[in-house]
């Protein structure tokens, strides 16, 4: 990121916080405006709806433009097979330059078009690289894929660093993991590298020397690395040889009595506990670790049910739901009863969370999850049961 972009990124973080404070009623409109005046925004931004539309139409315009020119210039049927991939390479380079021009010179941020061109630039460059690997170098998938993944990781990492898109950093970390899976001892690398890198990644994700976008990028890299670590030690992944499957190096399934099986079982149970403990430990709460810890804890509990059948599925699901509701209500009461309605640095008060957005998400999820099946205009009703299918504020002929 250029110094200008960095400054804009830092200012945007403060402006965003001021907006949250005003929404929560901590400051008034005048104070927010005064804060915004001290951290001016020199970027050209658009709202979320325009951003989505501009992104969609930029992707359509560039992609169809590429195919039109390919057909118009006869590149698809060229005798020299390198012409079409060469055109993809040139398009990728041009799109990267266009992205840079928009972000650095036109000062666009959250504008939709620059995000679309950056994504397409990576896509076209990777397509050219894939052609070069598999057609020109004649690599097979097993040997070509790690190289392609590493190329994707490098491109995505550069895009994240230069243009400040954290998602690319996460994608780069994912691509590195896939590449590592192809190597000998891939599973070991999935465990060792995240373990070795985690302290540094955690420090980078909180470093005040980095702009917010880069901090978020490192947070995502940390998240992907730790998710990879959990997958590598997970009992189910060990039994199913998931990492080896990704790396196309599936070995014989180890016997259950193998000490590694017991180690994997212990790690499946311990990783969530360690992540949660690290998230809570210290003065500052580490939200990404807490979320990862909670997510892996749920996965480990589901894994437990897979191996240990304590009760029929309906009992497990219903009791889990009841316990979850009880746990949340208990936790809420416990937090509310603490001094200033907080305990150990946690509060159930909304503080600066955007409740309107949260409710919108809930509504969308409710329509998706609970909308009843429509009645068929021709069929007779029938009962099928099936957990969760009976949906809605409504009911349904299929229950």
């Amino acid at each position, binding site marked *: 990121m250029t110094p200008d972009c960095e400054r804009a990124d830092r200012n945007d973080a403060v402006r965003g916080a001021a907006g949250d404070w005003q929404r929560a009623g901590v400051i008034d409109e005048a104070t927010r405006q005064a804060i915004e005046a001290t951290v001016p925004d020199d970027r050209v931004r658009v709202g979320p709806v325009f951003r989505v539309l501009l992104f969609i139409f930029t992707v359509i315009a560039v992609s169809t433009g590429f195919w039109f020119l390919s057909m118009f210039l006869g590149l698809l049927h060229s005798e020299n097979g390198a012409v079409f991939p060469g055109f993809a390479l040139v398009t990728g380079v041009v799109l990267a330059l266009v992205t840079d021009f928009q972000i650095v010179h036109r000062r666009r941020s959250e504008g939709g078009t620059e995000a679309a061109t950056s994504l397409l630039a990576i896509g076209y460059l990777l397509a050219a690289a894939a052609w070069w690997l598999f057609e020109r170098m004649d690599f097979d998938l097993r040997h070509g894929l790690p190289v392609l993944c590493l190329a994707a990781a490098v491109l995505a990492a550069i895009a994240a660093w230069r243009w400040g898109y954290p998602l690319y950093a996460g994608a780069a970390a994912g691509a590195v993991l896939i590449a590592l899976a192809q190597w000998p001892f891939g599973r070991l690398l999935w465990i060792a590298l995240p373990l070795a890198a985690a302290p540094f990644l955690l420090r980078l994700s909180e470093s005040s020397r980095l702009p917010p976008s880069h901090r978020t990028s490192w947070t995502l890299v940390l998240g992907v690395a730790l998710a990879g670590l959990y997958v590598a030690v997970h009992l189910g992944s060990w039994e199913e040889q998931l990492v080896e499957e990704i790396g196309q190096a599936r070995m014989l399934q180890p016997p259950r009595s193998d000490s590694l099986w017991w180690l994997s079982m212990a790690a499946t149970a311990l990783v969530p506990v360690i992540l949660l403990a690290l998230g809570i430990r210290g003065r500052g709460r580490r939200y990404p670790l807490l979320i990862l810890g909670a997510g892996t804890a749920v996965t480990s509990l589901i894994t437990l049910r897979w191996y240990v059948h304590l009760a029929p599925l309906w009992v497990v699901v219903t009791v889990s739901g009841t316990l979850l509701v009880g746990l949340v209500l208990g936790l809420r009461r416990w937090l509310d009863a603490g001094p200033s309605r907080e305990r150990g640095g946690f509060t159930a008060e909304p503080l600066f969370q955007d409740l309107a957005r949260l409710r919108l998400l809930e509504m969308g999820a409710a329509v998706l999850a609970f909308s009843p099946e429509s009645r068929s205009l021709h069929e007779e009703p029938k009962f099928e049961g099936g957990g969760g299918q009976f949906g809605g504020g409504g*009911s349904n002929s299929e*229950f």
Partner: protein
Amino acid sequence: MNPDVVKAIPELVRGGVLPPTKAPVLLRVARGELLSVHGELRALLYAGVLLLTGGVGLLVKENLDRIGPLTIAVGIGLAAAAALAWVIAKAPPFSWGPVPSPNLAFDYMLLLGVLLAGADLAYIEVTFTPLGAHWAWHLLIMALLTGLAAFRFDSRVVFSLSLSTFAAWRGVSVAFFGATLLNEESAVRWNAIGCGVLFVVCGWVLARTGRKAHFEPVAANLGWLLVLGGIGSGMLASGNAGLAWSGALLLVGAGLAAGAFRARRFPLFAYGVLAAYAGLSYLVVDGLDLEMMGCFWFSITSLLLILGLLFAQRRMRILS
């Protein structure tokens, strides 16, 4: 943790921009020393309701023969009644305006009660068939009861379920926001359009009368999605019918985009733009016999649309 905000707060206090009394709590949050888990608790409650309703569904499926239909119907009914009784006991007085939830669990207990009641009603109808040949009316009954609950307890989530249950009664699935309409037949298409228009009008009346006006966006969004989805599904018809539907989609989409732009209703504006573009493109591309010309059309029109959107956005900024 947000180091930039941590750094900015003392500077803002020193500059007299931020009152010093506000700084300590803001600093604690920015440093990560105080973390709100409000949203996370809500998400977990939601997951709890999902698990509970899913568990009840599995119970019925796996134990239908063993438990017996009457026990199941009574059991689910009692569970629904218990949840709704709790909601009634805790509910604040009715108001036509927005009413804050009395506690975190309120919305979710209401949702649980409504879902269990809906499940019970469906089960009773399927097992004991009290409505006979008019079995589908239980969906309408449930839509009306859910709507009443939504108004009484001021829940937009339950209101959206009421609308989707009503649409289900008319044979229209709102799951995936109308996208499933694309493979539907003519009768369902007209039902979808009818339901959509009804929802939009319902929203308009709510906003106009100021009675639960905050429910209007739910009705308007769902309504327009059904209208556009219904019209859009007609484009798959062969021959002139397909062209007529695409023309209709172009007109309705353009009208919606223009109206939404003036009213600053951005999601509706997006629906309108996408629908109008799809309608126009179908009309034009259908007449082209070359793949290359199709690519040319999409490329040029997308570019023009990008310019138009940038212009519209700039104009909106100037006007506001």
